[in-house]
């Protein structure tokens, strides 16, 4: 579970599985990420069948509090990106799980903002 997959690994996968050059594979990985990002910035949602949907939500301003100092401050309105995993992806994590004991993941990942 301590492995981190990066653009370089995705590039390597395209190189091995599709047979493109490494340079071209890297460009394609970048192109995919850029097109998804641009669509989201344009306010579109992006639906990747059997993977999931990225959608942009508008959050109203609210009063937040610094949990350490208790100080109040206004959190301005903002757009947040939400990823909703498809049923297929959720099921893959349950049925094809190869990540070992789940206990190891309870503290893993980042907290919600």
């Amino acid at each position: 579970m301590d492995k981190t997959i990066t653009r370089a690994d995705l590039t390597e996968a395209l190189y091995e599985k599709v047979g493109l050059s490494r340079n071209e594979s890297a460009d394609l990985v970048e192109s995919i990420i850029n097109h998804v990002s641009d669509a989201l910035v344009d306010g579109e949602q992006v639906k990747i069948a059997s993977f999931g949907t990225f959608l942009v939500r508008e959050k109203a301003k609210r009063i937040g509090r610094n949990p350490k100092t208790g100080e109040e401050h206004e959190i301005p309105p903002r757009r947040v990106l939400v990823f909703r995993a498809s049923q297929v992806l959720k099921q893959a994590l349950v049925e094809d799980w190869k990540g070992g004991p789940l206990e190891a993941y309870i503290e893993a990942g980042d907290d919600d903002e």
Partner: protein
Amino acid sequence: MPHVSVNFTGQLPESLGDTMTKSELIQLVASDNPHLYLRDITKIVNTVFDEITEGLTQGDRIELRGFGAFSVKVRKARTGRNPRSGEPVEVSEKAIPYFKTGKQLHERLNDSEASD
């Protein structure tokens, strides 16, 4: 003109208004790469998302700087309810996918509103 890919288009992806689908993404990547066949672009796009899925099933973290990071979180076991019958159902502990937006994309999402 990416004449090669046009030959493979067959049907236009269903337009869902402000939703970009995987087939629309494939079309966009294809138009950047007129020298590749649409079926290759399809395989490329599928491979990328399959690799992410595969990584998650192994408990890996997938970090795409500027875009965001996929990781696995654990949803604790709980007693759910069958929404139709209202009967309690035991739901066991399971791994769930989680995504956190990258700083750069978060900034782009919010910069575009700077004009108002």
